[in-house]
Structure formats: structure tokens, C-alpha cells
């Protein structure tokens, strides 16, 4: 009985063929896989993707439904570059969905995304759209070609279009995504801030939210191996990002202030600067 009901058994590695590849930008592609479990993922959850013979990496889920799951990948390392070279029909392995998800709130929400960190926020925005009064998006990237999902984000925003920022000024405002926040928060009242992206950006948003006593949820990223809360590679403070996160609420972010945007564990378990 215990053997047949073994808790993580349903999450054995599944192999599945790529059914769709979409170019989001010169450096970012969105992949679609057929996978029942991951198609039921909630916004904020992630999957572990096995690129056979190369690596297995955690990826935020961009969308799920009708037996399919989508995720977006920027080519940054060995694994992601190999993935970018793969074609429709090629086999990948998938485990998940893992981790918790964003809490769905009502009222007025502000979403702040950096780079491909925007993916889970877009997923969340789609789920929130019908239920909330106001949705505003700030999205930042290093340069124009890394600004992804812009059209979709614009369509999600209630009043004006999404605020885009680039670090090199090639599109939108010439600044970091955190720059427009103070004036936006001065002008309007928000019930919740959701954030995902580079951790120094998340830290800055946390500092602003803390100062203004605004609730916030952020999705964090760490080196991950097992994805199921065992190996300890993704610890931040007392939390396992893979199992207790990846989404953390304001009070939890406060508890991990000493590490948030500052340091993380490397492959050998030593602490490295972010």
C-alpha cells in the first residue's frame, strides 16, 4: 500500500516530444510540450527539464492547459543553447510541476518582471485578468531584443499600456525596471505587487514595498538539483526554494533579507555573491 502510494511516484521523469517552438526574440524561444501533469500547473510553479545527455534545469512555466505546457528559455549556458538547437519532434524529459504558486488577489495589482522572469507573471496575469479591478505591468530587460511578451502584456493591462524599460535605452524608458516604481506607487494605490526577475531587482522592489508597507510576492531562483526538497542546493535562509517556494510572501522575504539579492549557494555549497 505504501509502495503503490509512494508520494512522489507520479512525478517520475516523463519523456515527451517538442510540439511547438516559437521565437519570442533573437535570444528567447518558447517551447510547447505535451504533458498532462504540467498542463495543470498554477502560475509560479516550475518544471525540471531534462535535455538528454546534457543537463536537467528548472524552468518557470509560462502557460498550461489542454494537456500542454509552455515555457520560455533564453540561451545563456550549455543546456539552454543545446535546447535552442533542438527541433519539433525532438525528445525532452520533464518532471513537475513543482513548488508553490502565486496567491490570487483581487483589487489593483502591479506586476514587475525582468527578462524571461516575466513569463510566470504573464501566466498569472492571464488567470487574474477577469477577477481584478486594475492590472499594471512594468517589464525590463537589458536591451530591446530581450524584452519579451510585450504585445501580450499590453493586452493584459487595464488602463494604459505596459511600462517597458531597457538598460541600454534601445526601447521604452532608459533605466532599470525598478526605476518607474516609486512614481507609479505615488500616483496609484495597489493592493499587491508581484515580482519575478533578477534577484537584485527583486530585492529593490522588496525594499520599496517594505518602506511603503505594501504586500508583495516574489518568485525566486536558485541552483537546483533534485527539485523535490531533498538536496539542499536551493536553500535561502530556512527555506528550500524548490519546495517552500519558489514564490515567497512579504513576511518570508523579510526573514531572508540577509541573503535576498546578496548571496546564494554555488555548486559546491559555498556561498557566492549575487
Amino acid at each position, binding site marked *: 500500500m505504501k*509502495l503503490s502510494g509512494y508520494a512522489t511516484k507520479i512525478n517520475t*521523469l516523463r*519523456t515527451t516530444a517538442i510540439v511547438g517552438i516559437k521565437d519570442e526574440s533573437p535570444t528567447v524561444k518558447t517551447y510547447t510540450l505535451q504533458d498532462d501533469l504540467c498542463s495543470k500547473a498554477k502560475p509560479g510553479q516550475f518544471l525540471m527539464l531534462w535535455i538528454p545527455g546534457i543537463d536537467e534545469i528548472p524552468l518557470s512555466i509560462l502557460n498550461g492547459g489542454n494537456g500542454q505546457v509552455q515555457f520560455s528559455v533564453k540561451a545563456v549556458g550549455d543546456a539552454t543553447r543545446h535546447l535552442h538547437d533542438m527541433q519539433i519532434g525532438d525528445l525532452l524529459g520533464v518532471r513537475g510541476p513543482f513548488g508553490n504558486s502565486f496567491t490570487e488577489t483581487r483589487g489593483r495589482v502591479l506586476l514587475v518582471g525582468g527578462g524571461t522572469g516575466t513569463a510566470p507573471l504573464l501566466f498569472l496575469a492571464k488567470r487574474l485578468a477577469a477577477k481584478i479591478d486594475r492590472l499594471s505591468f512594468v517589464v525590463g530587460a537589458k536591451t530591446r531584443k530581450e524584452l519579451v511578451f510585450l504585445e501580450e502584456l499590453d493586452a493584459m493591462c487595464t488602463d494604459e499600456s505596459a511600462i517597458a524599460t531597457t538598460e541600454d535605452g534601445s526601447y521604452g524608458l532608459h533605466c532599470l525596471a525598478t526605476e518607474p516604481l516609486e512614481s507609479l506607487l505615488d500616483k496609484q494605490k495597489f493592493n499587491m505587487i508581484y515580482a519575478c526577475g533578477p534577484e537584485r531587482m527583486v530585492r529593490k522592489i522588496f525594499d520599496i514595498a517594505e518602506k511603503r508597507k505594501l504586500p508583495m510576492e516574489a518568485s525566486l531562483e536558485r541552483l537546483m538539483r533534485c527539485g523535490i*526538497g531533498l*538536496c*539542499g542546493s536551493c536553500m535561502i535562509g530556512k527555506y528550500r526554494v524548490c519546495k517552500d517556494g519558489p514564490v515567497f510572501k512579504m513576511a518570508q522575504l523579510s526573514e531572508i533579507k540577509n541573503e535576498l539579492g546578496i548571496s546564494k549557494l554555488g555548486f559546491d555549497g*559555498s556561498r557566492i555573491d549575487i
Partner: protein
Amino acid sequence: MSNSLLTVNIAGMNLGSPTALASGILGYTAESLRLVAEGGAGAVVTKSVGVAPRPGYPNPTVVQADSGLINAVGLPNPGIDFYVEELTYAKSLLPVPLIVSVFGYTAEEYALVSKKAVEAGADAVELNVSCPHVKYTGSEIGQNPKLLTDVVCKVKAAVQKPVIVKLSPNVTDITELAKAAENAGADALTVINTVRAVAINVETQRAVLSNIRGGLSGPAIKPIALRCVYDVFEAVKLPIFGCGGITDWRDAVEFFLAGASAVQVGTAVGSEDPTVFQAINRGVASYLKRKAYGSVNEIVGLCHQD
């Protein structure tokens, strides 16, 4: 849970409960160890640490098997010189004994790392002479009575704290190694480490783990672990940490009856939660009450009576 029913003394260490965290699970950071202690563990064993930093193997390093997990993480660790800082912090945070798992490529390395770990506050060291997936260390030492004897002797000479030897099941006769450890002066044994295993994916026709071979843990290996504890209990006088597939109180009691003085829990921290220790402790306590025992010590090795 402070409960005299569950208190055990093993190799001179007092454990508030007979369930300890097994090495390899969490354990890089002091806070991850505290999480487990707060979850009811009576002692914690760190990840294995060596002389020099090791990044471990690329992913996949953990793969689900039927009723268990196969892992080949590859002993990632920051090296003892970096790790002492975390150990000192862990010692200040933890309300339970801190056992440091140690590996080396030579007996001298085992001794050096053990010495530094004890200086940093370790209440005991556990010698990893049983990791099944890293060359020139682990089970390559623990499968050879002569090498094992040398390692244990040199570590015993280097530290004043209890020395626990974690044995591999991947041997012809585990009692031979248990006796070697006992004769070399070990204070306790942990029985067992993972069972050498491979996972293969049929669609890609590949071995899944990047290292190909790994170690199987979880419910799948419990009967093997029980047999090893049973045999070792009859062969030596040393106290035993039973380890291998323990998920609930019934599993733990089986190990006590087979001869374990305490147990270590690893894989179940993932399949259940870090509070799995509390759940097991509660179940063991109510079993003891139901059977009218005053202490868990009274049932250790009980099924050897006939």
C-alpha cells in the same frame, strides 16, 4: 519532543529522539539543519565534506525509481576549510548533536577533515566509506577491510569525539566490514548507505543520471537495510544507526527490533516533509506505550531473542 520514552544514548551522545537526519539530505547550511532539528530529528548528519571543494556532477543527479530515488550528486561540498565557518554557526543554532559526515581519498585526508570538523564543534564524525558513485573514495574504501581499518585507526587517533562508520550494502558480507570497523576502534555504525543502481529511459535509450551509476534510497531498499542491520547486530557489539527507506514509525520500529539503537531518515524528508521526524517519533512513542515499554532502548534487537 522531550520524552524519556524516546531518549537514546548512542556512542556517548544523548539524543532526545531516536530519529536522525541522514547525510546528503539538505545539510549544506546551518539553517537547513535547524529546519530538520525543529522537525523532530534527535541528531543531524551533515552533507559529506572533504579536504577540497567539489562541485558535484551535472544534472540529472536525482531520478525517481519505483518506490525510491536514485542519486549521484557526486559529493558536492565547499571543502572543510570553508565549511568550518558553517559548522561553527550550526553548532550555535542546533539544540541536537551535530554529526559531520567526512570523506577523503586517503586515510590521512579522513583524519585531517575529521580533526577540523571536531575543532569546529562536531559532536561526532560519520565516515562516509560507502558513497557508491565517486571514484577512489566512499565504498572503494568501505569495501576493503584493510583500507577501512587504516581509515578508522587514523581518524580515531586524530579526534576525541565518537567516530561512526557508515557501511555500504554493496559488499559480499557486510559483517566482515562491521567487524573491521569495530576492531579498528569505531564507536558506532550507520547501516546502510545507498544501493548501487542505474536508471534507464526507454524513449531516449539513455541512462538518465549524468554519472550513469548512482545509489538507490527510499522504501525500495528497506528490506535490504533491515537484513544488513540484523546481520551486523549479531556480528558486533557496536551501537547501530539503522538507515534505508524509513518513512514512518512502523519502519523505525522494524529497525529497532532488528538491532538499531537509533535510525536515520533521508529520502522521506523529500517524499514527506522535514517534520517527518516528529511523525515517526509520535508513532514510535505510542507503539511503546501500547506495548507497555518504558523506553525505546528496551526493544533494540528484540527479534533476536529466540
